[in-house]
């Protein structure tokens, strides 16, 4: 039985891992199968002929990661207007983390006591988990 199909972006390996979860309810077995596709030209054969329920999962993976599923009759976007790039690729900037200033950038020593000079910290910490290229 088909459970779900999803993908994991791996920019370091220049590939996208497409994962499918299959379950055998009678035997109580579950299997996770995956394959890697080229990140620059991701294309994979569709499993819709085998599992019709995978159609929307493939649509979503196409929308979020840009993987083309050959044989899927309808890969139109489900959630976005389709002009946002590939939202779930790790290289896509998260708007909430780009538009908002990190509150942790504040340093009490930036507002020194009267007559004192502001101490310059040796290094300013950046927001954890936010790549430098996203930061202004």
């Amino acid at each position, binding site marked *: 039985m088909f459970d779900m199909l999803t993908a994991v972006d791996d920019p370091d390996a220049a590939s996208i891992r497409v994962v499918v979860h299959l379950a055998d309810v009678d035997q109580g077995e579950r299997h996770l199968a995956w394959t890697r596709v080229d990140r620059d030209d991701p294309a994979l054969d569709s499993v819709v002929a085998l599992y019709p329920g995978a159609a929307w999962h493939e649509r979503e993976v196409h929308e979020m990661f840009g993987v083309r599923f050959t044989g899927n009759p309808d890969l139109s976007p489900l959630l976005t207007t389709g002009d946002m790039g590939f939202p779930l690729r790790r290289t896509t900037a998260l708007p909430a983390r780009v538009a908002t200033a990190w*509150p*942790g950038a*504040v340093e*009490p020593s930036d*507002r020194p006591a009267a007559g004192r000079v502001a101490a310059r910290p040796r290094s300013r910490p950046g927001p*954890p988990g936010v790549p430098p290229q996203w930061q202004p």
Partner: protein
Amino acid sequence: MSVHGRIALTPANCTSCMLCVRECPTWCISLQAHQEVAGDPGARRPRTVNVLDDFSIDWGLCMYCGICVDVCPFDALAWGPDPVAVTSAPGGLRHGIDELEG
């Protein structure tokens, strides 16, 4: 099991170290502080302390993970029993020192 209602602030314990602000995964805490000279102002190298001006938690962003409570080195943040009050005002879920105290 402890009661996780909301996170309460004891401003007197806060040293404005910024740990909670920087550890918060949802960026819901913001803090403003300035420095003042403590002790003998005539000393060759006067000691400075951080003075907390403003501290706020946006309960609309907070996911009650408690990381701020865990990292606070001086127990200025602790779990309190009361839930966050409902509001109909825009920005009403951003609580300052007065609302977070106690």
